């Protein structure tokens, strides 16, 4: 059941970034960690993929304007 929601058409792909990937993302965007949009650690999707507080999630959205759009969210409690 927990994994079922990941297949829902309204839920885009979420992936946990490694430490080095996270740093690369922050450097590329030239921002601090806290400037990222947030996602709660008890968010159903965050729970399903096992994300922990402080992780950065890479979200690949299906966009009606750009086709595919990659964005990031910081896991907070």
């Amino acid at each position, binding site marked *: 059941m927990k994994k079922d929601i990941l297949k829902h058409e*309204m839920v885009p792909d979420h992936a946990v970034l490694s430490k080095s990937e996270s740093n690369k993302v922050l450097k590329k965007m030239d921002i601090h960690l806290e400037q990222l*949009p947030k996602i709660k650690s008890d968010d159903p999707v965050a729970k399903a993929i096992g994300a922990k507080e402080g992780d950065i999630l890479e979200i690949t959205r299906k966009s009606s304007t750009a*086709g595919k759009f990659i964005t990031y969210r910081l896991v907070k409690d």
Partner: protein
Amino acid sequence: MQETIEKVTKVVKKKRAKFPESYIHDIALAAERHDLDDDELDELVRRVKRAYERAKVEKGEAVGTVAAQSVGEPGTQMTMRTFHYAGVAELNVTLGLPRLIEIVDARKKISTPTMAIYFEDEFKNDEEFVRTIANKIGKSNVNDILQDFHVNFAEMNVVAELDETKIKDKRLDFTDIINRVEKTFKKAQIDNNILSFVPSKSNIRELRLLADKVRDLQISGVKNIGKVVIRKEEDEWVIHTEGSNLGAVLKMEGVDKVRTTTNDIHEVEKVLGIEAARNAIIHEAQRTMDEQGLTVDVRHIMLVADMMTADGSVKSIGRHGISGEKASVLARASFEETGKHLLRASIRGEIDHLTGIIENIIIGQPIPLGTGSVGVVMKHK
């Protein structure tokens, strides 16, 4: 096609352009349709790049203000009526301005929650299966399956006779119903399909109350869901509901876990997460505008949805949400409840760093917008 896409990607890279996926796809389509050679493709990419860069939002542009105007202006043309019959014939769904306000206010209790329940491939043409599920989801009470019902004042009891054909019609389970009745009315006497009840105190008032209670006893249905409507849409059966409970419905056997949706944004957030809530806001807002024959560029709605979900939970636009959480005292005071904010700020000793637009307009300084957003920094020596 795949080849052309790769070729276009290469040209785009060579021209040092950063195009979104849909652009590359569109260019590849055009290249195939007109059978472009390499030089022509080069020229096409060059021109698209120029047009794309021109169309981009400038740094420091007031996108929020533009979004507010772009949603607000068509909003004035929407119907002011509170409700409207549309979509599924028998269901009443709030549309127009009231619905739009509901969305941006992020109401916890929306006025007409509704679901569209789809089925997995193997069941979507199985009418019998869909009807069984519909009756499991939809609310029915004892009153719906009665053949005969007596309130006997002489013997001080209530006698209900259940109609087996009605039960069969509704695809309900007889023992299941009996169990539910027994659970609620401990003193019920059950003789096949004849149920008799005795009130706890032997007076007429109690007897009448008991009769109503028996008739209203819910024997099937998912919590928060009322009426259901079954419809054939194109080549499959779809259930539309009045009321919504996404979590419970998604757990049911045979229900499509990919397409089944609700119009309750908070429920989407709870069950499918914040990103799905963002998609739901965009979808609902756009659907509401479309239905009224108004077109608003999605980008404006996307910005609104991004703001509403940036925090990790769905926040409203307005006093209790985004505007109420602004860092600047002056900005908050200028929006609503001026006295309250100024008083509180003075009690707490808040500091306003004057970084926003509104603060700077109030004190008469250039605003940090467009060319005003650039400052001079001296190099430390």
